[in-house]
């Protein structure tokens, strides 16, 4: 009895209770992330205020030829603060519209990168693919949603989900996975993704992918309004919104908008003008401070919560926590390989970690997936009972593939360690974190505004040089 008690999980709970808990926690984080994203959007709107000013002024002046409209240049003389508020508001609304349209337009998102070569529907005359179709149908029945479409890609050891919602979902399954994983574990992995789809995670994925893209669009337009790359980008965006962009190009577009800033900046610094460099410097500063330090971590925590939630829901669907845990370990052991670029991560069951991949400066904290050791521990609370052998195997795999996640997470903690941990958490970590968060937030706000203002002023000069003569011409 003592032995059984000792190996018992820390907090046995039902999957329903776990789901409720994760849902609530994710909801709280979502609110914080939304507030941070709104703050970031206001910064972007401030940065683009000169552009908004130019567009609005010329637009109103043109309209003035037919109907009397307010004169923004005069308004600038009388109420500069009020006009700035108006411009930021207009910019924010424009961003909101771009974001909403992008969400509607994205169909495969970053997962499209996995579809580049050799994707095909399953061939039911082959036993293993027939079995996969069955397994997906079973999970969907248990979740009460329509069975997602299936796309097979040649090789890998992961499963990705994409689509716009529970009624329009597709699973990307590597043929290598169904060839090497037995039915029970395939069912567990598929159940995780079906659970994620049924929980509405695709909606989350869309929002997460569309947000930085919406921010990047105005920065591109401002920095290189006349370059050919910008027009290609605009064309691709238009095709995206019309729903005529094929998956691979959609993924390439997203990848481009999300990751190209730094390279672009380097090229500009070599031979470009001062204004684009300033804009990209401010843009990069904003990305680092706002996007990566404030919005990014919140969204990451949110997405991780949704992973835990999908794990708990998968246990509800299969009633097989052992199968899911074993499958996770197996997938991690093969480094969760998935075709396509690294940006497919968000859609995958486990984090793809190619051999040569290194953790970023954040030491793996920036990953979309929680450390596998933590997921295993939460599965233990839902009934996963590893044998000593399985535990040792899991630990060996995790030490090899996820060395930054501490191995002690695999062992269930003793009561004493949990008590000490709780005390340390409340007395030391939480106040420290709170202080650090306040400091970081304050510093971020100050530095952002300091770096933004010169950009806005610099950009205002060429904009005014074009807009003012036009304005005087139109207003007579």
């Amino acid at each position: 009895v003592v032995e059984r008690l000792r190996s018992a999980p820390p907090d046995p709970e039902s999957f329903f209770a776990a789901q409720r808990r994760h849902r609530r926690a994710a909801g709280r984080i979502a609110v914080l992330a939304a507030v941070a994203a709104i703050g970031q959007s206001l910064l972007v709107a401030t940065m683009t205020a000169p552009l908004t000013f130019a567009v609005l002024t010329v637009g109103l002046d043109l309209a003035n030829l037919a109907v009397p409209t307010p004169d923004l240049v005069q308004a600038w003389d009388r109420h500069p603060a009020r006009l700035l508020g108006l411009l930021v508001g207009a910019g924010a609304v424009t961003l909101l519209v771009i974001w909403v349209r992008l969400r509607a337009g994205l169909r495969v998102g970053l997962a499209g990168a996995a579809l580049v070569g050799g994707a095909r529907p399953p061939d039911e005359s082959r036993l293993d693919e027939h079995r996969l179709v069955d397994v997906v149908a079973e999970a969907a029945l248990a979740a009460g949603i329509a069975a997602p479409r299936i796309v097979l890609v040649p090789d890998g050891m992961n499963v990705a989900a994409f689509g716009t919602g529970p009624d329009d979902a597709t699973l990307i399954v590597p043929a290598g996975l169904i060839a090497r994983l037995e039915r029970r574990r395939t069912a567990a992995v598929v159940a995780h993704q079906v659970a994620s789809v049924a929980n509405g995670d695709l909606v989350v994925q869309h929002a997460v992918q569309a947000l930085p893209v919406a921010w990047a669009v105005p920065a591109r337009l401002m920095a290189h309004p006349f370059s050919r790359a910008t027009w290609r980008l605009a064309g691709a965006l238009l095709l995206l919104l019309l729903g005529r962009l094929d998956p691979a190009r959609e993924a390439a577009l997203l990848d481009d908008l999300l990751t190209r800033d730094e390279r672009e900046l380097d090229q500009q610094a070599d031979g470009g003008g001062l204004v684009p460099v300033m804009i990209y410097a401010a843009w990069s500063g904003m990305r680092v401070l706002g996007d990566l330090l404030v919005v990014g971590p919140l969204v990451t925590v949110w997405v991780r919560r949704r992973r835990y939630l999908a794990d708990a829901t998968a246990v509800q669907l299969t009633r097989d926590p052992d199968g899911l845990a074993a499958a996770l370990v197996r997938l991690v052991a093969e480094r969760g390989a998935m075709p396509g670029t690294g940006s497919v991560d968000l859609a995958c069951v486990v984090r793809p970690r190619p051999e040569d991949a290194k953790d970023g400066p954040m030491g793996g904290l920036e990953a979309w997936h929680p450390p596998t050791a933590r997921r295993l521990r939460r599965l233990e609370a839902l009934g996963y009972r590893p044998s000593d052998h399985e535990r040792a195997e899991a630990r060996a795999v995790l030490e090899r593939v996820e060395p930054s996640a501490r191995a002690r997470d695999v062992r269930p903690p003793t009561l004493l360690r949990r008590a000490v941990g709780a005390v340390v958490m409340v007395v030391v970590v939480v106040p420290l974190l709170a202080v650090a968060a306040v400091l970081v937030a304050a510093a971020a706000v100050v530095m952002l505004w300091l770096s933004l203002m010169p950009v806005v002023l610099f950009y205002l000069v060429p904009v005014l040089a074009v807009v003012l003569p036009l304005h005087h011409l139109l207003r007579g």
Partner: protein
Amino acid sequence: MSGLVAVVLAVAILMVAILRERNRLVASRARVRAAWAQVDAQLARRHALVPRLVAGVVAEREHERQVLAGVHRALAATGRDGSTAGPTAAVTVGPVETGLTAALLALEQAHPRLRSADTTLRLQEDLLSTENRVAAARQHYNDTALLHTTAVQTVPTNLVARLFGIGPAPYLDLRLLSD
């Protein structure tokens, strides 16, 4: 005056809250019914599918068995080294072999990659999945019924449920199934 406004506001908020809860309960009842319909659909699928699956495999096996039996007979009629016992035997064996070859070819063409082992595996998979689907549909029904019944019977939604006559959902157990 402001007291009246406060009362009206409070009543309005209460009404909205009640209607919201009612809508959620109705939605959850609809989910329970949809889940039940899915159980029915899966049971019907099993009822229609299993005999056909088994019959198909049995027929295929029977065909294979006949062909194999024919091969055995033909082999028995020939000698070990392929010689026949005599001209008369050769005459009787010849047509049998010709027919057998045709049958083997037909088998091969009808199922280019299937052998009976594969057919059996496929039958196993189909049966397993059929049972799994029925179980999954039942499980989904019971999960949905659990959440619905919990909502109907816990404070404060139980008041709303009673007000609008929304009852708990029965669980699916063996007694219900045998009806």
